[in-house]
């Protein structure tokens, strides 16, 4: 077998006359000498001839050149298509908004019902005498610095305002309502005595019923002793502890959260005593007028009782059927239930008016934390893995929440961009090329 000086692929190129003329001559010369290559060329040639057996008909006579105007109309159609696409996308977006917005309004954005009329004053420790004076000049309601009233009214006076270094309203928008309470308090301050019971006196004069609630936080040094003192003060005032909770951990200061109820007349003296326990870091007085509720309840109660009396009279003069009598008795029972329920409500309101509620948090003054034992490398490594895992899960969850929250919006804008790009791609590319 002789050497082949041509590549196999060249044989097909030779047949197709795709070689350079000189190479064409060389291959031809090689084929004259090499029977194997000649046979392969013959095979390839035969394949081409066989392929030529598959012929197709000529273009039908109905195939006419397209009108040039039709071709020119196409760009307009493209714009039309783009307009249609944009209009369609806009319609879909509007539909999506129409579907989702009412739900959003119903769920997350719904307007909260108007709360019961409530007046609230937050009492905070004064930054200093100067600040207090400044506030006084602005005619803001304020109590005398130092807290202790110069004149303490008789204990029989119903409801006290808080006496504290300074106060400021929590919400500017509610200032007018707060001002009512504040002015009442100021009236007593004008007399150089922010006295207990002045507000309640005024409320009583005006025929109003007001429920008082005080929230305060006091930092104390001798935690246990001060806690006992607090309980004693409440007991002396004729009040009681409604709820108590305390917590103590090695690294945190001691803390006790108590809810006490004291007679309204004793509120101011009790508050004075509580302020003496330590440093007051927060004090807030909230009042709620329940006059309307009481009046309403009384009216409903009177009506219910009258109904009950009428029903009893009907029962006493019974002339109807047994079924009617039973029906009247059932009605009496229902009315009685309603009366008892309203009685309980009235009693509850009365208690709320008569007994002020004090939520007091006693916190031990901060002490240096115990230094925990040094953590070993293994523990730190393990903690690092745990934190890494939590961080990873958090990231995944964050991504999922992100998709849930913004996925639809993103999809919409990406779809819009894609449509725009699809429509403008060719003109833009052509413009860039030119």
């Amino acid at each position, binding site marked *: 077998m002789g050497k*082949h000086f041509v590549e196999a*692929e060249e044989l*097909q190129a030779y047949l197709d006359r795709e070689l350079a003329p000189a190479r064409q001559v060389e291959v031809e010369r090689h084929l004259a000498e090499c029977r194997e*290559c000649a046979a392969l060329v013959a*095979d390839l040639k*035969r394949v081409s001839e*066989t392929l030529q057996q598959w012929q197709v008909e000529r273009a*039908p006579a109905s195939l006419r050149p397209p009108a040039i105007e039709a071709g020119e109309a196409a760009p307009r159609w493209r714009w039309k298509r783009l307009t249609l696409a944009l209009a369609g996308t806009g319609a879909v977006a509007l539909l999506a908004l129409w579907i989702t917005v009412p739900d959003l309004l119903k769920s997350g954005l719904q307007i909260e019902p108007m709360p019961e009329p409530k007046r609230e004053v937050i009492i905070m420790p004064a930054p200093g005498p100067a600040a207090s004076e400044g506030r006084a000049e602005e005619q803001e309601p304020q109590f005398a610095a130092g807290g202790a009233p110069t004149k303490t009214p008789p204990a029989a006076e119903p409801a006290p305002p808080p006496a504290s270094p300074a106060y400021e309203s929590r919400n500017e928008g509610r200032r007018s309502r707060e001002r009512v309470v504040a002015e009442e308090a100021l009236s007593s301050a004008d007399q150089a005595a922010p006295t207990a019971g002045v507000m309640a006196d005024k409320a009583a004069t005006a025929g109003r019923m007001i429920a008082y609630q005080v929230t305060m936080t006091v930092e104390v040094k001798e935690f246990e002793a001060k806690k006992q003192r607090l309980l004693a003060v409440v007991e002396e005032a004729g009040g009681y502890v409604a709820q108590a909770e305390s917590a103590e951990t090695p690294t945190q200061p001691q803390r006790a959260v108590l809810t006490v109820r004291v007679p309204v007349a004793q509120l101011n003296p009790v508050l004075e005593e509580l302020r003496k326990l330590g440093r007051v870091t927060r004090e807030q007085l909230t009042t709620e007028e329940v006059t309307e509720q009481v009046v309403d309840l009384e009216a409903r109660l009177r009506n219910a009782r009258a109904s009950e009396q009428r029903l009893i009279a009907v029962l006493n003069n019974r002339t109807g059927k047994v079924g009617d009598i039973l029906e009247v008795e059932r009605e009496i029972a229902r009315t009685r239930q309603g009366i008892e329920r309203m009685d309980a409500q009235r009693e509850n309101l009365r208690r709320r008016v008569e007994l002020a509620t004090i939520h007091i948090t006693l916190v031990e003054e901060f002490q240096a934390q115990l230094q925990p034992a040094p953590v070993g490398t293994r523990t730190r490594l393990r903690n690092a893995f745990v934190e890494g895992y939590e961080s990873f899960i958090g990231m995944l969850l964050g991504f999922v929440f992100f998709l849930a929250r913004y996925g639809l919006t993103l999809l919409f804008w990406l779809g819009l961009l894609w449509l725009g790009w699809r429509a403008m791609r060719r003109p833009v590319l*052509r413009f860039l090329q030119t």
Partner: protein
Amino acid sequence: MLAFKRGEAPAFGELFARYKDAIYGYVRRRVNDPSRAEEITQDVFLALVQHRNGYEVEAKFRIYLYRIALNRIVSEHRKKKEEDPLPVNPAAGGGDAALVQQVREALGRLEAEQREIVLLREYQGLSYQEIAEVLQVPLGTVRSRLFRAKLALRDLLGGRPVRQAGRPVSAAGKSEGA
């Protein structure tokens, strides 16, 4: 084409008359339905009208035309979710029907890239360079794919297997002695 681009309408008629059979034949070998082949051919020339301003002088017109035709055929197959098949019912253009069927089946068994080159070379008569430009592949790739396709067709059409050709052909298509 340049004359048509300049706005000479009769030039387009001349182009159409010159290439309509070639393009129709190219499309017809790839589409089963003759009327659909006619529509696609029409579309090809319509695209030519629409994109005449994008035609570049450097590009050979025939290449330009075949590229449009190829894109339309691919688009047609994609629309119908077909995998680049050859017509089930080959066009009647004469020849031994059984042999034509054999040829169609043999072409159908080729790899798509090889088949495209065979069709453009054997039936459309495009040069290697033109095929390379239509398919946008290197010239050497066209040459090697065509050679391998022809060898495969020889086997499929009943010729001697490659191994018995007297000179083994490696995977790269080169003979051992070359």
